[in-house]
């Protein structure tokens, strides 16, 4: 379409057939339902496949690494990889991407001759762990704090609102930097700081849900029939709050990976010689642009994974109807 057409279309308010999504009637819950829907949508299906691969690989590789570390057989960590990700091999230094020795050099090598592909694969479990751990912890902490604050109200609610306000006033990355550095710049520090930064959003959300749910009919009915608060929360509030959160959480895994890898880029987190997607990108900076593959390919990998998470989260939010965020 030429520029003229685009401009013409732009100036003409002309929508077309709304693509209604045929959603099944009835309560939207259960992962089977989501799965069904996502698989039918081809793009989402591909994204789901990639995520599944990523997660599966991370689990396998992560376990291998841990076992290798625990049993002092570190080589287990790279048993499945095309090459040793931390072995110096200056002969193959700064090799551009090529198909020789497939698949070792498919993404090229860095200054120390390590295959970028191997390093990417080796580092994957860290990102996956960060994503899942931070989001789940955030949900759990947020759920506990937010639901109780929202349901019981009063000064606890006020305090919570103020605290989350303060947390949310700072951009996540900046606070993450401060916390991680103060805690000691290691992988665990990063995880802790990310969890600390992530829960307020969920707390806010669960609070809003609790607030809106507590005046609903079935909760009033429960109260009238003498149910105590704890049971009401467990039985009515929690289950009804969860659906939209799941959709948002799917998106959020991607956000964690972005923040995590940006921290790694800045040198916070896993230290050399161990690879990390973000730090690989920044290590390549002095050799940019001639050896562009070192900086750009890890970024592309991050982008791909995050796109898939975001896509799925997006679809799920469409499915549920009410969006949490734009």
């Amino acid at each position, binding site marked *: 379409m030429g520029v003229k057409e685009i401009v013409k279309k732009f100036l003409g308010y002309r929508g077309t057939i709304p693509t209604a999504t045929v959603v099944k009637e009835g309560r939207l819950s259960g992962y089977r339902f989501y799965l069904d829907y996502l698989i039918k949508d081809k793009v989402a299906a591909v994204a789901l496949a990639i995520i599944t691969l990523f997660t599966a690989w991370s689990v396998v590789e992560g376990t291998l690494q841990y076992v290798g570390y625990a049993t002092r057989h570190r080589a287990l960590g790279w048993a499945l990889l095309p090459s040793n990700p931390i072995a110096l091999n200056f002969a193959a230094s700064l090799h551009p991407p090529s198909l020789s020795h497939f698949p070792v050099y498919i993404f090229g090598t860095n200054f120390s001759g390590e295959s970028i592909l191997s390093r990417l694969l080796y580092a994957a479990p860290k990102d996956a762990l960060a994503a899942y751990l931070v989001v789940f912890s955030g949900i759990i902490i947020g759920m506990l704090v937010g639901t109780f604050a929202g349901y019981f109200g009063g000064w606890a609610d006020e305090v919570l609102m103020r605290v989350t306000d303060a947390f949310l006033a700072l951009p996540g990355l900046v606070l993450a930097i401060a916390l991680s550095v103060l805690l000691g710049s290691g992988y665990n520090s990063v995880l802790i700081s990310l969890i600390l930064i992530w829960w307020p959003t969920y707390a806010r959300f669960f609070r809003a849900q609790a607030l809106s749910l507590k005046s609903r009919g079935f909760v009033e009915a429960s109260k009238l029939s003498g149910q105590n608060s704890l049971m009401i929360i467990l039985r009515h509030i929690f289950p009804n709050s969860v659906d939209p959160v799941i959709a948002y959480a799917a998106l959020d895994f991607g956000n964690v990976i972005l923040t995590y890898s940006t921290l790694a880029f800045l040198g916070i987190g896993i230290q050399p010689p161990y690879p990390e997607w973000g730090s690989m990108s920044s290590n390549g*900076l002095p050799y940019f642009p001639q050896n562009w593959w070192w900086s750009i390919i890890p970024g592309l990998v991050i982008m791909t994974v995050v796109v898939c998470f975001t896509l799925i989260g997006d679809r799920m939010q469409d499915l549920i109807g009410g969006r949490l965020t734009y």
Partner: protein
Amino acid sequence: MQISTLIYLVRRVINAVVTLLLLIFLIFVLVHTIAPTPVALARIYCGSPHCPPAELQVIIQQYGLSLPLPVQFAHYVVNIFHGNFGTDTLYKVPELQVIGELLPITLELVITGLIFAVIIGLFTGSLAAANRNNPVDYTVKAVYLVTWSAPVFLVGFILQLFLAYELKLLPPSGLANPTLGNPSPVTGYPYLSVVPQPLQGWLSGLVRAITSPPLIAAAVDGDWRFFVSAVHHLVLPALAIAITSFGVVTRLTRASMIDALDRDYVKLSFMKGLSKNRVVYGTAFRNAVIPIITLIALLFGFSTAGAVVIEDIFQYHGMGYFTVQAIYNLDYIAILAITIIVGISVIAANLVADLLYGWADPRVRLE
């Protein structure tokens, strides 16, 4: 100005101040949780992880680190309000001075990036709304999905690779052409004496801060060669920031426009006989844009975070670059100072957005 508008303004300002205090409190609590003992605290203030115990004692005395916590907190707040963020370990000058010189540069970058992001977002969002569910819409959606998911350093690298190194359209790094001299800073203001004394210091500091970033300094000084060079150097970094953040603007604009176009008052405008353009880009757009204002505050925070990375990649010597150095040198004081100042900036941006929103939407300010 009506009473209700005034009340709205005052409430927003109070809100901002309270949030700021809470933010400082939060940071205070976090720092003291991580470093609960005076010795641990002293290590942080020392500026390097390997401080001899004698020096630690000196620091404890100097900063009053063994005083009871509320007292420490009070000192902390008072210090911050006086602009005392400690002394930078590397440059050995007050933090505020270092940050004061570098912050305007970063703000210039961030604000430019924000403006780009908003423009791109409004344009693509309206485009998508006007072409709902046809290929244009899907393309726009795909584009913002990808750009939103791309890590900010990737965008920076790609821009640098293609536009600077391959196509040589724009310079790859730096603030301005280093061979050109810097424009002279603004000193001596003719009308300053009009202002009462204590305010003079603040005002001159503010003026100097505002006129220090490259573009503005060059414009004020009349140094157009420098101005042009600074513009050239600003484009790529600002574009990188804009590209990663425009996605939310697009999304919201699209949803907002679709909603606005469905409203009866749009039909009524057609009834009056206004042309389609005037209705869509006048009435509907004007109403749709209002929620975007709240987004700007969020974007400001996001862009500031992105600036840290971008300044590293593009060797753009602003506060972000300073942050990267501070991380590398484990300069805790600097990092804390930066955190607080960024917090202040974001809260200020939120306040500005709130005020703008009140101006744009009469429903909010006239209740």
